[in-house]
């Protein structure tokens, strides 16, 4: 597996990580990468739930508040 390339900008850094992680996913068993993905996503969703964002605020934020 290739090493993670450092980027010169934030965008390049992020894209390099996307490539690196995609290669990891492609070359490792589903159980391996998905265990790591689950930790990340489940904790982000739990944090989002704790924030108790109201529908009104959320839709306003998305520019979708209709009367």
């Amino acid at each position, binding site marked *: 597996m290739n090493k993670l390339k450092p980027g010169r900008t934030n965008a390049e850094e992020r894209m390099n990580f996307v490539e690196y992680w*995609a290669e990891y996913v492609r070359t490792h068993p589903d*159980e391996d990468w998905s265990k790591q993905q689950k930790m990340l996503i489940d904790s982000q969703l739990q944090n989002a739930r704790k924030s108790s964002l109201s529908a009104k605020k959320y839709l306003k934020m998305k520019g979708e508040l209709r009367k």
Partner: protein
Amino acid sequence: MKFIDKTTIQTDKILTELDLFVLDFISILERYADYVIISGYISILFGRSKATEDVDIFIRKIDFTTFTNLYAALQKKGYWCLNAEQPKDVYNYLADGLAVRFARKKETIPNFEVKFAVTSLAQESFHDKLLVKTAKGDLFISSLERQIAFKRYYLKSEKDLEDAKHIEEIFKEKIDIKKIEVYKRMIEHE
């Protein structure tokens, strides 16, 4: 994660809370409408290391009676619509080509952003949809080439370009580059 035939992908991933949310919602929706999942969730389903607040989905247009039954089934299973309460109001938004959002009761995130497939591009996404088989249920998603083209040539944000890259890298031996070019031209002419 692999293609088991031309239109079916099998994944043995350990499902996230987001995946389970999607599978649960789909198990209700599919009884009332044809659907296809599009956009960011697809790259997440295939391993992208990020979450999303919403899951985008096209459904084929259904009549008001069918929608009312769908809405009642969603409510019964603990979902609510963020945009309106009365089924008629929610349906009117959809009929006007607007998206409506559904989440679990007392929650806002994550949510499903549901839209009728009205444009020709949206309707065509049903023709070459893919079936994804997971340990706890199956899902229909838009074709990988469509996703890449839509994200790279229509949405174009940093996040969308990254999603496109992820899908392209994961399935690089299966992606049809010529198809992406065709969709790119369709997007430019839409």
